[in-house]
Each structure stands twice: as structure tokens, then as C-alpha cells.
């Protein structure tokens, strides 16, 4: 049992740390005193910092060297994340592009696409967004309805609506899943496209959450035309391309985040301030339970890193950490607000913000129910739910659904 680095890792860590010691003052300040608050300015400064990180080899380090990466393994990428946290500086701005969409293009894109898009993505010149989800295609991603129809000149005309699109307002490009053959079964007949976000017919609308902040966007596509060469990974092969993105998504979330900053100590400070609360057996019990679970998430993370080092890629069970974290944070928010009372729910309160933020997080990236299904089936080997959408052409499926809903 050893929490320390191997000699090679220690050397790599030292290198990263040295670079950060030299450059960390150039990073934008996003929290605490002197922090930038204007969202646009934050984005601008973070992009500048991303360019700097890329320069130092701290952005997209797992990318092959020919595309600007360092060709290192996932453990090194963990080390970079840890050192960034330690130095108290932000990670890359375009986590989605660098962590998920870039790797997808590397895996499935044409050489022209790689040459054109990867460089500006890495250094933050061009931000990307992921356009998979739709109002009727959330957990069930293969239900996308956005239509792409090929024109006589080989270009594609797109119509539909995407939702939950992070960074759409900053993005130059989107990687977008659309249906190209509705007569095929739902998992077939989709194609992945690169969409210039400034194309005619693209409308971006901020999607406000409970707190009132627009953390996501909706994107409307109205007769948007893209070139034939914007297809990534082949026509009607979009599902396969998308699976690659989702695999990298799991890896990015699993190894990059550290419980969204929800830690026992943060809540202990709020609760411990109240002398009555800190001696109340019920408060102590509820808090002890959730704090212990949050601590477990930290150590599950270490175990995953250790397994990764042993060559194991984290599976869907990684999602359990998210379930634990979100549910414990929800309990913590309720507990802190119970102790403080209505004042905890003031508009400017950090607790009110947290309480507002968490219900959305619970469903983000797939509902808890879907996650439990996946883990039950893929990890515990339990039999799947009966699927009524197997082998039915997508076009008919919609008709069946409409009929059912009307019944």
C-alpha cells in the first residue's frame, strides 16, 4: 500500500511542478480575492491560460505528439490534474474539446480534419461543444431526431434541436450527432458532423437552471448546411463514433474531477460554527454519515488511479462515485440549511446556490436510474431490461411511442 509515485512518475510530477512554479502567476484568478467574475472575461482569460498550458505540455498530454500532445498515459494526466489543483490554478477551459472531442477526432477523423481542427482546439483558439443530447434524447442518446439530409451537391442540410450544450456560446465548432437514415434501426442511421457554430441557421439560447444561471444552452438548427467533408467517422456510423466520445467522457470525468469540491470539511466548518448544532446527536449522525461517504469517494478515486496504473481502464462502476457525491452533497445542503434556517436560502447564499445546483447535477450525464441500470448489467452481469426498441426502424418507433402516449 503506497500512496507515493513510482520514480518515473515522481520525475514527471517534478517536471510539471517546476513548470507550474514558473508559470502559475500567469493563471487567471477565479476564486477568492481579486477573482474575475464576468463570465465572458473568465472564458477569455481561461482560454489564454489554456494556450499557456498547451505550450508547457500540460494540455492534452495524452494526445499523440504529432497533434501537439505528449503521448503520455492516463496516470500522467492524473498527475497533471493533481498538480494543477495543488498549485491552485485552473485546468484547461475546453475540457470537453481537449478531453473528449479531440480524442474522438483523433480516433475517427480524416487526416485533413486532424490537421485543421486539433491544433486550435488544443491551445484554446477554437472552443468546441458536444451536441449529442436532444429534448427527446437524453439518457437514451440513440433517440436523436435532428435530421441531416444530403443535398445533390453532397452537402448536408440539418434541422433539429440540441440541448444541454455546454460552452455553445463560446464555441467555434460543435461535434454533432444527427439522423441520416430514419428507416434504419435507431442505433444505425446516425452520422457525426462537425458544425461551424456561426453557420447560418444556428441559434444558441442559454438554458437557465434552478438558480437562474444559464449553465447550458439549447441550440436550434434551421436548414443549416454543412459540407460533405464535415462527416466524422463515416456516414451512418455516428453511433460508433459517439461511443468513443462517451468512453473518453467517462475517463475525463472519472479522473479529472475530485467530487466537485464537495468535501466533509467544507460542511464541517458551516455546521461547527453553530455550537448547538455541533453537539446535536442528530446533526452529528447525519453529518458523520455523509462525510464518511464523501471520504470514500476520495479513496475510491485513489483506488481507480492505482488500478489504472495496473493497466485497468475504469468501467461504468466509476459512476458510483458520482451517485455518492451528488446524494451526499444534497444531504449536506439540506443539513446545513436546516441548521442555519431560512437565511441559508438567501439568494446570495452559497448554500442556496448549492441546493439549486444539485438537482440538475443529479441527471447530468444520464440519470441516476440509467447509471444504476448500466452498472447492474455491465458490472454485476444482471439481465437487461426488455427493450421494445430493438430491431424497429426509427421512423416506426416514433409512431409507436406517439400512439402509446396518446393511449
Amino acid at each position, binding site marked *: 500500500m503506497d500512496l507515493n509515485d513510482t520514480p518515473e512518475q515522481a520525475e514527471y510530477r517534478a517536471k510539471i511542478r517546476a513548470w507550474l512554479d514558473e508559470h502559475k502567476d500567469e493563471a487567471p484568478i477565479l476564486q477568492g480575492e481579486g477573482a474575475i467574475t464576468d463570465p465572458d472575461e473568465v472564458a477569455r482569460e481561461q482560454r489564454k491560460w489554456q494556450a499557456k498550458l498547451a505550450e508547457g505540455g500540460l494540455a492534452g498530454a495524452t494526445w499523440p505528439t504529432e497533434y501537439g500532445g505528449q503521448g503520455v498515459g492516463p496516470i500522467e494526466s492524473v498527475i497533471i490534474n493533481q498538480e494543477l489543483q495543488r498549485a491552485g490554478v485552473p485546468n484547461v477551459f475546453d475540457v470537453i474539446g481537449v478531453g473528449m472531442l479531440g480524442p474522438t477526432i483523433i480516433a475517427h477523423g480524416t487526416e485533413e480534419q486532424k490537421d485543421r481542427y486539433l491544433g486550435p482546439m488544443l491551445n484554446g483558439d477554437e472552443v468546441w461543444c458536444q451536441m449529442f443530447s436532444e429534448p427527446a434524447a437524453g439518457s437514451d442518446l440513440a433517440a436523436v431526431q435532428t435530421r441531416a439530409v444530403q443535398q445533390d451537391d453532397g452537402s448536408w442540410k440539418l434541422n433539429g434541436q440540441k440541448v444541454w450544450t455546454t460552452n455553445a456560446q463560446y464555441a467555434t465548432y460543435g461535434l454533432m450527432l444527427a439522423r441520416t437514415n430514419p428507416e434504419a434501426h435507431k442505433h444505425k442511421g446516425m452520422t457525426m458532423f462537425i458544425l461551424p457554430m456561426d453557420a447560418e441557421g444556428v441559434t444558441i439560447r442559454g438554458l437557465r437552471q434552478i438558480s437562474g444561471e444559464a449553465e447550458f444552452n439549447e441550440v436550434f438548427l434551421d436548414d443549416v448546411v454543412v459540407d460533405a467533408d464535415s462527416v466524422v467517422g463515416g456516414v451512418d456510423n455516428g453511433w460508433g463514433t459517439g461511443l468513443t466520445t462517451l468512453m473518453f467522457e467517462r475517463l475525463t470525468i472519472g479522473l479529472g474531477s475530485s467530487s466537485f469540491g464537495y468535501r466533509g470539511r467544507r460542511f464541517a466548518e458551516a455546521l461547527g460554527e453553530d455550537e448547538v448544532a455541533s453537539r446535536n446527536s442528530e446533526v452529528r449522525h447525519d453529518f458523520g454519515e455523509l462525510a464518511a461517504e464523501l471520504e470514500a469517494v476520495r479513496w475510491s478515486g485513489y483506488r481507480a488511479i492505482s488500478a489504472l496504473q495496473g493497466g485497468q481502464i475504469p468501467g461504468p462502476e466509476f459512476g458510483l462515485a458520482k451517485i455518492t457525491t451528488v446524494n451526499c452533497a*444534497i444531504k449536506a445542503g439540506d443539513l446545513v440549511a436546516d441548521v442555519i*434556517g431560512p437565511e441559508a*436560502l438567501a439568494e446570495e447564499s452559497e448554500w442556496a446556490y448549492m441546493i439549486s445546483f444539485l438537482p440538475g447535477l443529479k441527471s447530468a450525464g444520464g440519470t441516476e436510474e440509467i447509471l444504476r441500470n448500466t452498472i447492474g448489467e455491465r458490472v454485476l452481469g444482471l439481465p437487461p431490461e426488455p427493450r421494445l426498441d430493438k430491431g424497429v426502424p426509427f421512423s416506426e418507433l416514433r409512431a409507436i411511442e406517439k400512439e402509446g402516449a396518446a393511449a
Partner: protein
Amino acid sequence: MNLELSDEQEFLREATAGALSRVKTVEEAREALEDEAALTDLWPVAAEAGWLGLLVSEENGGAGLSAYDAMLVAEEAGKVLAGAPLLGTLPASMLMDLGGDDRVAAVAAGETKAAWLPAAPPSSVEDQWTVDPIEGMDRPEAPQAEVKGDEVTFTGTVAWAPDAGEADLLVVVGLDGGSPVAGVVEASADGVTVESGWRYDATRKLGTITLAEATGRKLDVDEDEISRAWYLTQALIAAESVGTVATALETSVEYAKERYTFGRAIGSYQAIKHSLVEIMRRLDNARSLCVYAGYAFADSPAEIPYAAAAARSVAGGALDYAGRQQIQVHGGIGATWEHDAPLYFRRSQLNRRLVGGTSMATDRVAEELFQGRGPVAAV
């Protein structure tokens, strides 16, 4: 045994729903988060519909109805998130009526606004009457009171009192030599500071009232009657929550039938189905206890603390659960600003911490049973 609503009660319920349907309460609940002015003032609506005099005796110009009737009104208000002045006004009017304050006729008529400042009766672990604190778990004692003849002078602070920010008359509970006394202080009287605002749920106006030797008219009510005001508020919050949960369940069930994923309506999945049944289970239990509370107020006063506390405890739990599940069943869209679910969630978050909070009601249930009180021998 007949626990069904009487025809008069059915009519009251319908009339209440009718009066509320003329205001876009749910939309206003959202708009008011950004602009308080978006809220329709519901005091005139309440006055016109007769809610303010519901518990005032007929000789004082009221309707002389029962606590359960008032709960029916609260339930209807809860269904549509109406911030109707009930939680503060009804106990105020009840105490003024009992205590012989002739200004209650004007209150019943809607000409004068009255609100009561909630004070919780002591228990075996909390040895004195207390009020909600501005912040934290340490509950301050009820304001100090000094009685001089027909007058009483109060000093102390009561935080987060529903309806109290707008009231002309404040019905205050204070401690005179350790014993509770109630009095009516004008909001404009010397020594009264009123801070008005809302937290998280913009429909619910809350007042934090500071009394610095503020003098008013003493009410001729005893300790039992004063404590009844507290339990009435608990019962009203319970009933209101029942209404809110009912709407949350209804809209969630509707969505679960219409929304498809993986080729099936999501309501066909056990995770969704069972959680909707869980809302229903909690709702049904809360309803039953509201009936109990209504019965206790009407026919079995010794059971009031237990019944009202049990109703609030279970209804509060139901509202907590439903507030979160409604969002969860709706998936990502349920957590967006434009959706109604977050408004119900906001209501649930605030109600849970109002007037002692759900947890104090739960504690009272245990208290009553530990003290050998609780249910009177069953039928």
C-alpha cells in the same frame, strides 16, 4: 363514521380553487424571483373570498368555521403555490377572537391586516416557550412581556413570521415571569421594527419583527389557547403541503406517461413507477393525518399537539420527497428555470424550515408519546 367532506366543505374547496384560478400564481411564483412586483397581492382576494374571517366567530363578523375548513383552503392554495395570507393571519384572528379584541371584525373583513408571531410551546428538552431564530439552531426564548392592566409590553425578536411583514396588527406571545401571555401590538407602535422579505420561495412573504418595549393590548387567552395557535399553523402548513404534493404527483404522473426512453414510457420503469407510488404513499398518509388534525381541533383538544405535529411531520416529509422527485422524474428539463418543478422545489425547501421546521414537529410527536399523551383510545 363519516370522514368525507360535507357539501359545504366541497363548496368551500371549489370556491377557493375558483378564486385562486383567477390569478396566475405559478407563473407569478417564477417571475417574482426576479421581480417581486410580479406578484398579485392576495390579501384582497383572501378578504373577498372570506378566508380571513374563517375562524372568527359569527358574532364578530366571521364565518365561525373549523380548523379543518381552514386547512381545506390552505390545501387549495398549496396546489397552485399561492402565497395566500393564511399561516400568519388565521392564528392571529383566532387568538383575537378568543381573546376578545374587537378589532378582529375589521381583520375578518379584510380592512385591517393581522399576523401572529409564532411561538412554540415548551417540551421536556426545551424548557421554555421559544421563537424561531434569525439564524442557527439555538432557539431564543419568546419575547419578554410585562403586563400592566389591559396592556402588555414586549421586548424581543421573532424571525421569519409569515404574513407579518405586511400586517397592521401583530399578535405577539411573550413570557411574563415565565408564563406565556399574548397581546396585540400595532405594527406602527413605538419600538416595533419590521423587516420584510422572502427566502428562496418568492411567494411567501416573511417578516422579522423586533420589539423594543413595544406596548399593545393584552388578549384574554390562556396557555392552551396560545399553544393552539402554534398547532393551527402546523396543521395549516401540513394541509398546504398536501396540496403542493398533490400537484407535484399529478404533473409527474402525467409526464411519466408521455415521456419515452428506450422505446418505453418512463412510467413503465420500476424506478420511476415506484417513486411515484412513494409520493402517493406519503401524500395519502399526510392526508389521513390532516383529517386527524381536523378531528382533534373539532372534537378532541387533548390530541391537538400530537395530531397537528404528526400531520406536519409526515406532510413535510412528503413535500421534501415530492419536491425532489418531481424534478428527478422530469430529468434534466425538470431542473430548468422555465419548468414549474423548481418552483415546487423552492416551496419545499422553505416550508421545511418555517415555523419551527418539519423537524420540530417530528420531535413533538415523540414528545407527546414519551409523555404518555398522544392518541386517545381508538374507536
